[in-house]
């Protein structure tokens, strides 16, 4: 720690800086704006460096004088005052005085401080020139203070100063604390613009304890120091003292800017203020403890605002920031946008995984290793969960699609002069995203049809004793592995007779044919059929319902019509829950395996050949109910002899039950549905294919199609 060597460096450095300062000052006049700024900066830097270095070596007489020069230079370079010949001369004289002080310090002679006093007085004029007057007009100086900092006119106070109010604790003197030394130390951080003693705590003479400290100060402090740094000055006394540090105006703007630029993390208000420096840790602690004492608890913001009104703009900024961040975080937590392709890819992979898992499972079973089988079954259990979770990723509520119809119904009803209300239920029902996307058009058709053809005009409704306002309902719900969407209206309903006439007229129906109402209703889905006597703008072009049916069939769904003449009709769309993976039930006929969707399977029975042979009819008595049988072997025209024992799989679809007679039962199996090629699009009872665990391809049977085909076949037989 060789101070002397360092001191020598300081003297050399100072002289160089002073020389530079002189040459810069001499060329200040008559140079252009940009160069002027640069020169002023150089002069300022020189003074600033000298002041800083002198401080380290405790050359306070140099610091004190240079500080004032620096302040003037600062105003100059900030263009708060203009440069003129007089000022240049003054600055040159100041430079000379600093040089003299440095020389004196080197020679270890007492410096001629008095020579600087007239210069200081002149400099003060530039400093006080346009400064704000302060309320502490009669600022009293601290008694007997040797001036390590400049005594400045109280009216030099501007809003750019920190306002520090400190009341020292009564025991300060007894604790060995000298208030003055704290102020002196504060002076090393910046400029004490004014110091006003607060005398109101001094008691009457009788109560006056000469060892107690009654001092308080209001300080205007110009500094670049942070609030924390300023508070640290009073570190040793802050426990017993009352300390308030109020930020300068410019600092407030800085805080606000800081708050706005903070990263978007959810933080408490106190944390935000602490981080930007508007609040010190101690202040926050005080406010928090005050908050705890209060009943009922007030928000921390209110307590802080109460304590320091100048903080209000910062508080507002912090609160805005906080709520903004919270909002965006809440949004982020609610949903995450993922590219649909990525999801599809994931689901494809999960599909492959399911197939591979089934293969492993088969292999493990054939090996007969108990431990392996167990671990494979655990693996498959997890796989099932992964599959369900992956499929759920694609599930979206149908609500958004439904609510779109509010507007459609309102607009079309208005256009047609009808008064119609749309009722929506089950908007939270979730279904596969791709289904939601594709169901919009068919739904639109059905809703339009309901408005146009279903709901009668107001006059007709009133005449029929119905309410003037018609009602259309959209209803979605889950039903045994399916999603059901119903579009209902309370209008006139379908008239089987009209449909019949129309169908015959269009050549869709034989005049002699005897169809049930339900069968007649289904004719509306035939291509080229339209019941509207007049083709309206909205519907009735005869291209509607068949397209609807096809669209829904594309989604592996079907549509049913329920209608009561005069009461209204309901179009029921039944869709599979997912498009990709289902739980299947594997059965075997001859050497082939087939998959039935598990949710259609009710139970399995053994076929009692004796019972069957006795009736010669394809029915059995299942607990008192007639169960029609479908001999899959016959239906699929499989050759070869029947096995000795056959099984019946009891299935149910759309309210119909049937027993499917198969050769073998293999059990449950997770099935990844692979669509069939276009070639097979007309094959009614097969909905897709899948790859089994052993790698063979199996067809997925469409139970509904199978039942329909069976019924049609039987009717044909019956007619014959």
């Amino acid at each position, binding site marked *: 720690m060789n101070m002397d060597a360092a001191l020598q460096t300081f003297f050399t450095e100072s002289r160089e800086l002073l020389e530079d300062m002189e040459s810069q000052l001499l060329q200040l006049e008559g140079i252009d704006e940009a160069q002027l700024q640069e020169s002023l900066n150089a002069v300022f830097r020189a003074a600033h460096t000298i002041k800083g270095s002198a401080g380290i070596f405790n050359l306070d007489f140099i610091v004190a004088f240079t500080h004032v020069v620096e302040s003037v230079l600062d105003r100059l370079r900030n263009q708060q005052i203009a440069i003129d010949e007089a000022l240049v001369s003054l600055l040159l004289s100041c430079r000379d005085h600093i040089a003299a002080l440095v020389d004196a310090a080197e020679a270890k002679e007492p410096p001629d401080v008095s020579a600087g006093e007239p210069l200081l007085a002149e400099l003060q004029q530039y400093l006080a020139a346009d400064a704000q007057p302060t309320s502490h007009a009669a600022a009293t100086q601290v008694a007997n203070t040797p001036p390590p900092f400049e005594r400045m006119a109280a009216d030099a106070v501007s809003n750019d100063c920190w306002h520090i109010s400190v009341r020292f604790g009564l025991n300060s003197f*007894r*604790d*060995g604390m000298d208030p003055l*030394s704290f102020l*002196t*130390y504060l002076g090393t951080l910046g400029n004490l613009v004014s110091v006003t003693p607060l005398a109101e705590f001094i008691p009457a003479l009788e109560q006056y304890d000469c060892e107690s400290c009654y001092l308080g100060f209001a300080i205007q402090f110009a500094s670049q120091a942070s609030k924390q740094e300023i508070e640290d000055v009073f*570190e*040793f006394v802050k426990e017993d003292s009352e300390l308030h540090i109020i930020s300068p105006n410019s600092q407030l703007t800085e805080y606000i800017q800081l708050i706005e630029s903070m990263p978007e993390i959810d933080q408490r208000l106190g944390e935000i203020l602490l981080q930007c420096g508007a609040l010190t840790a101690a202040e926050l602690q005080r406010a928090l403890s005050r908050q705890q004492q209060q009943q009922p608890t007030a928000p921390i913001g209110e307590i802080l605002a109460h304590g320091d009104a100048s903080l209000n703009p910062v508080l507002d900024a912090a609160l805005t920031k906080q709520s903004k961040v919270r909002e965006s975080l809440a949004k982020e937590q609610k949903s995450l946008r993922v590219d649909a392709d990525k999801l599809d890819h994931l689901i494809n992979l999960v599909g492959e995984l399911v197939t591979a898992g089934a293969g492993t499972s088969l292999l493990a079973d054939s090996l007969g290793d108990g431990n392996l089988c167990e671990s494979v079954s655990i693996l498959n259990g997890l796989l099932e969960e992964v599959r369900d979770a992956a499929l759920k990723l694609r599930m979206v509520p149908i609500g958004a699609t439904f609510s779109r119809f509010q507007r459609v119904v309102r607009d079309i009803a208005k256009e047609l002069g009808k008064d119609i209300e749309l009722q929506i239920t089950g908007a939270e029902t979730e279904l596969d995203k791709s289904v939601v996307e594709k169901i919009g058009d068919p739904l639109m058709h059905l809703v339009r049809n309901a408005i146009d053809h279903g709901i009668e005009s107001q006059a007709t409704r009133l005449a029929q004793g119905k309410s003037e306002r018609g009602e259309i309902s959209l209803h979605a719900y889950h039903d045994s592995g399916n999603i059901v969407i119903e579009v209902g209206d309370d209008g006139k309903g379908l008239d089987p007779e009209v449909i019949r006439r129309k169908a015959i007229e269009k050549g869709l129906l034989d005049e002699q044919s005897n169809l049930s109402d339900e069968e007649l209703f289904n004719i509306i889905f035939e291509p080229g059929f339209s019941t509207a006597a007049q083709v309206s703008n909205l519907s009735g072009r005869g291209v509607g319902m068949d397209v609807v049916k096809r669209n829904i069939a594309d989604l592996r769904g079907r549509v049913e019509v329920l209608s009561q003449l005069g009461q209204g009709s309901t179009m029921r769309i039944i869709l599979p829950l997912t498009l990709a993976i289902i739980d299947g039930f594997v059965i075997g006929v001859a050497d082939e395996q087939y998959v039935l969707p598990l949710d259609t399977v009710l139970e399995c029975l053994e076929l009692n050949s004796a019972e069957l042979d006795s009736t010669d009819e394809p029915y059995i008595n299942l607990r008192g109910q007639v169960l029609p049988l479908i001999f899959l072997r016959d239906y699929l025209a499989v050759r070869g002899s029947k096995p000795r024992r056959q099984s019946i799989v009891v299935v149910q679809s759309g309210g119909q039950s049937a027993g499917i007679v198969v050769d073998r039962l293999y059990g449950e199996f997770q099935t990844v549905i692979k669509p069939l090629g276009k070639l097979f699009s007309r094959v009614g009872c097969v909905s897709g294919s899948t790859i089994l665990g052993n790698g063979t391809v199996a067809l997925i049977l469409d139970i509904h199609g199978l039942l329909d085909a069976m019924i049609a076949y039987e009717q044909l037989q019956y007619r014959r």
Partner: protein
Amino acid sequence: MSKTILVVDDSASIRQVVSMTLKGAGYSTIEASDGRDALAKLTGNRVHLVISDVNMPNMDGITLLKELKARPDTKFTPVIMLTTESEAAKKEQGRAAGAKAWVVKPFNPQQLMAAVGKLIMP
């Protein structure tokens, strides 16, 4: 006349570092190895600040502080206690005895000088 600081610590190296730092800043120093030594060296000397360790043989820093407060000539003399983070209990005792200024070891010269600067003027 430069101000005098009494440096009390049983570790000679810490005394040396503290003394050198203070002397570098222009203070005079008196060194003492423990509380009792410190009290002895106070006789006949006027000190402006005492920097004392807490844990010392013969007389610890807190007892020294109490002694200083009891003497009329050192009653108002500021005292900086040197402590380590682990001595939380000692710090409480010291606080009760009226020690307000604490510097946590290890400290660098700047930290020490900042504490000194807050308590006495150069």
